[in-house]
């Protein structure tokens, strides 16, 4: 890292932390089938950011992040309310919330930008992310968030595994589903809220979804999947942020997504558990065996499936 300015170093460390946290929480979201939910929450955070700014009249990061968390949670509640009180399915409900909240955020942004001094507010960077604008305080915030997520995963790894695999059975053992859901939603909203400044509301979900999906191609163990997902998320965060700092004014989100997509492509093709290359090789091996030995001579064990 020689030759990097202090600021650039902060940015890279911040993105490493953010990517790690997003990779871990993304695994939870993946097994809760909540990939689209994380996208809806990220988009739903935008009106809160703008409202937080408009309320004070000047830029205060804590207030804007609180606003983001509040509106993301309102979005989450709205999704579950629509689903439980109407015939609308969850994916359609998320589609509605995602677009309506994002539209509302853009509308508020347009109004705020017309206010005196609003044009220089820098709020636009919340749409595509501006990691280069981050300062030391942001680095601390992201490191703290990553530490919390990592601690939660390390302390209650077994509980998360049980809850994600079989929530009904978990409740039978006394592990409250409501408590786990609340903890999960909290972690998800925290990661999204601290991430949108750097990655942007539009692409934040990619940092949650792509590392987890990529990790799945390499392992059959939940612990390894978490570790790999954290690694991939951190790697994509650093790579994307580094490229975006090469030129002033480049948005960070798109570069992070491209870096994550690269990791996904490699995993998809060469993954050791589910990759395409592996599947092709297994298929060739099966066909070779079929040619050399037309009839299988060894007996199957009782209850064993055909290979």
């Amino acid at each position, binding site marked *: 890292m020689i030759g990097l300015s202090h600021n650039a170093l902060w940015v890279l460390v911040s993105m490493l932390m953010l990517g790690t946290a997003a990779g871990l929480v993304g695994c939870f979201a993946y*097994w809760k089938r909540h990939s689209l939910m994380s996208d809806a929450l990220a988009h739903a955070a935008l009106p809160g950011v703008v409202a937080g700014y408009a309320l004070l009249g000047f830029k205060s990061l804590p207030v804007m992040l609180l606003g983001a968390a509040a509106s993301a949670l309102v979005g989450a509640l709205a999704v579950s309310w629509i689903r439980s009180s109407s015939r609308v399915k969850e994916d359609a409900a998320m589609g509605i919330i995602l677009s309506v909240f994002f539209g509302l955020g853009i509308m508020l942004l347009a109004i705020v930008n017309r206010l005196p001094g609003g044009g220089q507010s820098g709020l636009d960077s919340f749409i595509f992310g501006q990691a280069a604008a981050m300062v030391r305080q942001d680095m601390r915030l992201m490191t703290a968030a990553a530490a919390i997520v990592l601690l939660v995963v390390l*302390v*209650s790894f*077994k*509980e998360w*595994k*049980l809850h*994600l*695999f*079989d929530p*009904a*059975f978990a*409740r*039978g*053992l*006394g*592990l409250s589903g409501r408590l786990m859901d609340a903890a999960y939603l909290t972690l998800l909203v925290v990661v999204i809220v601290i991430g949108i400044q750097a990655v942007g509301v539009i692409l934040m979900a990619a940092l949650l979804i792509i590392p987890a999906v990529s990790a*799945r191609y390499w*392992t*059959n*163990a*939940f612990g*390894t*999947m978490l570790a790999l997902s954290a690694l991939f998320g951190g790697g994509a965060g650093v790579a994307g942020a580094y490229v975006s700092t090469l030129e002033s004014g480049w948005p960070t989100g798109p570069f992070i997504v491209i870096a994550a997509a690269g990791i996904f492509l490699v995993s998809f093709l060469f993954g050791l558990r589910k990759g395409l290359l592996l599947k092709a090789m297994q298929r060739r091996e099966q066909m070779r065996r079929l040619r050399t030995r037309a009839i299988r001579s060894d007996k199957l*064990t*009782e*209850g*064993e*499936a055909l290979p």
Partner: protein
Amino acid sequence: MEPVANMKKPEPALQVHGLHAAYRRNKVLEDVTFEAMPGTLTAIVGPNGAGKSTLLKTMLDLHPRLGGEVRFFGTAYRNAKLKVGYVPQRGSVDWDFPTDALDVVLMGLYGRIGWFRRPGRRHREQALEALAKMGMADFAKRQISELSGGQQQRVFLARALVQDADLYLLDEPLAGVDAATERAIMETLKTLRAAGKTVMVVHHDLQTVEDWFDHVLLLNRTVIAHGPTAEVFTPDNLARAYGGWLRRKEPVPR
């Protein structure tokens, strides 16, 4: 544990009184009342939509209860959780989850291991033992997505076994399994009964009810009949549970 045989009437393992439950506008359970005694193996039988799975879920607080009372060993479910083993339908979980058979069985011990603590070697041995009882010792390290349907069901059974519960509630454990697995599961359940435990099984196959179960709970939204198989499993009662179309019980092929 010896089967209870003294003069004093043993306490029921499960008491359900006036249980009501609904899905949206449709009432699924109406005034369900029954008791299950220790050392019995009961089939819960009834047509599709009769509320068999809902009955289990409602008793276990997994589905909202509109009214009525459920007592496990004389107390509410939340106080008796570790005494109750629940085996959900195989299709209720995602078998693509990245874990192996041994790990799933270990989950049955989580309540005893304690929250936020890691399972030790002793727990691993217990889980292996339960897998061996289900004839699955060789598959301990097998990825669960690579198990056949019958093997997955055996893993679920092994997970219930390590819980060492006193009352077992199983939701269609014999659905879609082959004859060998059906025998392995039912022999295991008979062993539990012989140890004085209470077992209730949601069961779909009327042909095998008399072979495996000593008690039958005929359910169609409410209890049609409940008692020893020989008394309850009659053509008349079946016709009442299934509606008019099942007039005669088909002879069971031996």
